């Protein structure tokens, strides 16, 4: 009898656990393990710069990269992860932080950019100083103002954690944790962050039930005339560097692209950001100086601060009216990809 009771109790516990497990399938709660990860080039897009060469995309590699992205213990004092500054609801930009808050509450020099469609970028950071997606995470991990860690500590931490060792084994065949493996895993997650399901994309693909409103149409045509040469579709950036006439913030001592190229022509030039998801990735510009889109566009187009190398298209362009700016914003809002910013495959696997 006693044994039977025990079994019955066990069954109860089991079914309860199962019940809760099923509850956790709720789309709001991220699944700890993602399966069936793929990378496909959206219809009509150019070929990516990086297509997981020598780093074939796998479920195991993606899941490892995803966990690393949200791992605070990669920072010196365990307080900051990539996800602290790159928040999914803001398209992986840093919401409400002009310049990102790093370790010890220190401010960095620059605004954390949104992260998506990174496989199409030839360079990374506002000054384009980093030339490959698989080496990018080394910068924030080592930066004394960001995570202030180093790869030797990262490797020691990961090697000492059985659950990570298991994930390395699943991904690479054995438990060895190396810089190369850590970074390849990061690239699996970062590269899989594809945003291509905005209203704009659905209209481009001719999906039923989607159409621009009259205002969005007006905005689109102004955009095509005035913005698309730089913020070129489908990626909404040609990823080159320009000085658009933002008055330099002297205290930051940031020369932009010139820091890398050492050419005065590039003084205060920055990599042009994609305008996809720009509705949710406030604040704007390399130092996050604008909170709202109308202000960002007004200063960007109508009030350039004179410097000898400001792009002539900006310097000599006609002013946009308040109405025109509003129409452009209506169009830009069609670039918001709600599927992407709510995709639970990209959220913190351990979030409770």
């Amino acid at each position, binding site marked *: 009898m006693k044994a039977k009771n025990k079994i019955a109790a066990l069954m109860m516990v089991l079914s309860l656990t199962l019940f809760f497990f099923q509850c956790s399938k709720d789309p709001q709660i991220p699944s700890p393990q993602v399966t069936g990860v793929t990378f496909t080039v959206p219809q009509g897009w150019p070929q990516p710069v990086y297509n997981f060469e020598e780093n074939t995309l796998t479920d195991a590699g993606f899941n490892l990269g995803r966990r690393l992205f949200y791992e605070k213990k990669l920072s010196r004092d365990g307080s900051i992860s990539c996800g602290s500054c790159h928040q999914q609801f803001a398209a992986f930009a840093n919401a409400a932080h002009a310049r990102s808050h790093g370790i010890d509450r220190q401010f960095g020099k620059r605004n954390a950019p949104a992260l998506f469609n990174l496989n199409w970028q030839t360079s990374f950071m506002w000054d384009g*100083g*980093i030339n*490959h997606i698989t*080496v990018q995470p080394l*910068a924030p991990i*080592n930066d004394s103002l960001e995570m202030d860690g180093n790869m030797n500590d990262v490797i020691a931490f990961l090697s000492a954690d059985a659950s990570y060792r298991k994930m390395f084994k699943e991904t690479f065949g054995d438990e060895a944790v190396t*810089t190369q493996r850590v970074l*390849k895993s990061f690239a699996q997650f970062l590269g899989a962050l594809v945003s291509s399901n905005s209203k704009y994309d659905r209209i481009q693909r001719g999906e039923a039930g989607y159409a621009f409103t009259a205002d969005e149409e007006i905005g689109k045509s102004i955009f095509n005339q005035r913005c698309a040469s730089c913020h070129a579709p489908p990626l909404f950036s040609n990823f080159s560097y320009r000085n658009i006439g933002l008055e330099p913030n002297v205290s930051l001592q940031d020369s932009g692209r010139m820091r890398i190229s*050492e050419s005065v022509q590039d003084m205060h030039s920055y990599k042009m950001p994609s305008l996809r998801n720009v509705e949710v990735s406030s604040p704007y510009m390399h130092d996050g100086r604008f909170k709202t889109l109308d202000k960002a566009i007004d200063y960007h187009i109508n009030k350039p601060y004179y410097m000898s190398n400001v792009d002539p298209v900006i310097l000599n362009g006609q002013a946009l009216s308040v109405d025109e700016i509003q129409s452009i914003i209506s169009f830009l809002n069609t670039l918001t990809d709600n599927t992407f910013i709510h995709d639970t495959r990209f959220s913190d696997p351990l979030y409770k």
Partner: protein
Amino acid sequence: MIHKSLLKWFGIFLVATAFNSCKKDKPKEDTNIPPVATGAFNLLFKNTVGDSALVLETSEYKNANGDTFTISTFNYYISNVKLIADDNSVYTESESYHLLSAFNDNTLKIPLKNVPFKKYISISFMIGVDSVKNVTGIQGGDLDPAKGMFWNWNTGYIMAKFEGYSSKSPEVDKTVLYHVGGFSGSNSVLKTVGLDFPTAMTVSETESPKLKVKADVLEWFTSPQNISFSSLYVIHAPGADAKKMADNFADMFSIITN
């Protein structure tokens, strides 16, 4: 009965084997080339300051300008090692990237493997890491960025690194710090070194030659440009200063016999 079925199976086996061997024969090119006999060639580097062996931290030295200094770090990459034989054929080491560090004598020994039996008359190698490995993302082994020879914020390898102290340095802590790198265009500091052997060195069944190459730190500070630690005491990015230093250290290697 048993006999018959055995025969049948044997027949199938024969046919299968035939097909199998057909497949194996496919890469025809290989079949006629006799396997090349190969051996070992050992490359040994010795870091020196002038004629004396480099000693970290404790020894004080003097550069051509007369500035005294001590050395705390001396690291450099050697890549694309080639041996040239007397018949003009070239042995190229595969995955040829080596970080040589004064911290660890083992890194100064480079055993070249699978070197064809031949008489070799010269060697060439690159100081630094070729541009391909600077633009193709994360690497392992000696190219692991955790080795401390990689710029995270401006992608690229530090090809050679000298750190030390000089009373002439205007820095508060008297450091002298040269992180020399740059792989592209006019910023490239990559140098290819060619050294002729005093006498030919034969790799054979019985001979595995040892080539000793010295790397003289003093060459960093003289010819074509004299370096004074009071005016150039820090380099941490590609550019004119890095190029100046690379022009200087391009001739720091020479073959020695002891």
